[in-house]
């Protein structure tokens, strides 16, 4: 029983961690390229979830097959999140590329407020039940108590997505261009990289990942409202910083550390301080590693 409990918590931590990772990757990629905390990233996640809700809501009225609904809904969520991400960048961040960091941060906060209230006004402030899009299938007895099919799907999807992303960044032409842009933007231009395109692609990928996270978790939790993005966003942001913002493996590691900390904290201590565990571990790690777990130490040239 004791060991069971341990594994249950571990799985729950991993599930959480995967979701954080999907969102945190967006933060970290954007940060890597434009050195900006995209505070509105959580809202992109929320918009993804809402789009999926709307699409599946409409489609289910026509009695479509759930698997198709799921596929169409998640595609729509990805497309729309990406579109919002790119538009967000064009409106709120592109004009501020040369501005001080704080200006861009405030602009991002403004956008976050705007998007929350946009969805609140255009849709509703109520929690809406989110259709169960993830197919349920039964695990055998001992496994069943440790991990649910939902959790399993979340873990698998996240892993696949992350492996794909890693390959993309490491080997593709665009991936290389992204890395080059993140290291020296002006120089990237001088070798012929269209940085506007690279920045847009970064926002597209980051937003698409957030949308996947949004759909998976909403389907798992079963309901959404306009505010889900803010909370998840802050957590993912913490995860990204924990791992070393700008570092892609860092974001993943940070997310899992965060997810597992929260899960074990809840399980063995108390869920009263669930959020506090996240923040405490962040502070502790940053005290000892001021640029995060895998962050590159930015030693300023003197």
């Amino acid at each position, binding site marked *: 029983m004791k060991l069971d409990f341990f594994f249950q918590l571990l*799985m729950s931590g991993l*599930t959480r961690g995967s979701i954080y990772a999907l969102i945190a990757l967006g933060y970290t990629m954007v940060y890597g390229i434009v050195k900006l905390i995209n505070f509105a990233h959580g809202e992109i996640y929320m918009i993804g979830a809402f789009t999926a809700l709307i699409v599946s809501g409409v489609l289910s009225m026509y009695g479509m097959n759930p698997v198709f609904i799921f596929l169409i809904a998640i595609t729509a969520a990805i497309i729309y999140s990406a579109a919002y991400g790119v538009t967000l960048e064009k409106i709120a961040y592109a004009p501020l590329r040369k501005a001080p960091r704080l200006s861009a941060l405030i602009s991002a906060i403004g956008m976050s407020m705007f998007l929350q209230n946009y969805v609140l006004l255009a849709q509703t402030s109520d929690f809406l039940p989110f259709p169960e899009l993830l197919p349920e299938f039964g695990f055998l007895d001992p496994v069943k108590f440790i991990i649910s099919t939902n959790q399993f799907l979340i873990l698998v999807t996240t892993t696949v997505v992350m492996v794909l992303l890693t390959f993309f960044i490491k080997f593709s032409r665009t991936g290389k261009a992204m890395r080059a842009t993140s290291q020296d933007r002006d120089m990237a231009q001088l070798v012929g990289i269209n940085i506007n395109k690279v920045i847009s692609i970064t926002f597209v990928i980051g937003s698409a990942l957030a949308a996947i996270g949004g759909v998976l978790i909403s389907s798992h939790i*079963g309901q959404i409202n306009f505010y889900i993005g803010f909370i998840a966003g802050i957590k993912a942001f913490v995860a990204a910083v924990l791992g070393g913002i700008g570092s892609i493996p860092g974001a993943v590691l940070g997310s899992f550390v965060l997810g597992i900390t929260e899960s074990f904290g809840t399980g063995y201590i108390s869920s009263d301080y*669930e959020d506090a565990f996240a923040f405490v571990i962040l502070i502790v790690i940053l005290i000892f590693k001021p640029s995060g777990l895998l962050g590159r130490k930015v030693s300023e040239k003197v």
Partner: protein
Amino acid sequence: MKRMAKFFLVALVSVAAITFVSCGKKEAETIKIGVAGPHSGDLASYGIPTIKAAELVAEEVNAKGGIDGRMIELVIEDDVCKPEVAANTAAKLVGDGVVAVIGHICSGATKSAMGTYLDSELLAISPSATNPPLTQSGDYPNFFRTIAPDDAQAAVEVAFAYAQGYKKIAVLHDKGDYGKGFAEFCKAILEADKKAEIVLYEGITPGAVDYTAIINKIASSGADAVIFGGYHPEASKLITQMKKKDMNIAFLSDDGVKDDTFIKVAGEYAEGVYATGPIDTSSNPLAIKAVKAHQDKYGEDPGAFFINAYAAMLALVNAIDVANSTEYADLTNALRSNYVDTPLGKISFDEKGDAIGVGFAVYQVQNGQYVELK
């Protein structure tokens, strides 16, 4: 210098604008009644039904020629459920010359506003603020409510748990003032009675992306029942995930969950859930009338606390009528000494301000509906 001038101008204009906005026309003819609660933001759905209730009653009264020929005018102010905003909202209502206030909705906002009303000799009737000290502390003689306080509800809940024979109980809450307050009372009663063991007492985090950790914890605590203090969004997340894990533990909750939305959101997983709520008065003719009026006017079913707000408004109108006055002392006296027919039944108010005749019952979700258990 230009800068100074601009600064001066900005200050002047803002101040002037506010002054103008707040000093509206003053017609002694109407009776102004304040309606306060969250009308925007994430808690708006708890506040807006109260506006509608007040509007319906006011329209009806006005259609009959008002109270002694004086029309009712509603002054509606948003407090977003925030104490700091509620203090300003209260000041605004006082400044607008209302004779009484229907509201506020959240206990925290209510507490922060009541001080202002007390100093200005105004009374408030809340349809939803259930925090016990509001009436029991004696600090707010001007406070009334048409809903039973949390401790009364907790007592009903715990008694029901005993009756069902639960021995190990997990008490959870959503860390909010309502949910945690309710859970605290349940805990206190359980600890005092020693008839059942509290195997878990914890707050869950609203908005978390996953609840499996806490659910695993409930499972491993060996509880045979969960008492949850909080609102329906969290409750439906909990129950859904518990049921998906095939956990057959009884789920008991409070008035925040006794809401049809809960059943719709949680769907099939809601079956069998217990929740306490005000004694069912839906068969009360006045309640039927009120709901119908709402459906006619707004084309949908009323939302949370509508009936309580309707009752509060009726009680207030009646008090003004009976006392034939809008003075504070007369009104409070009238509220305490007269029974009035409302959708909640025949009610009056005790010395502390709690409604007499308003109580709690336990409901269970059966076939997709809340059914009162006798």
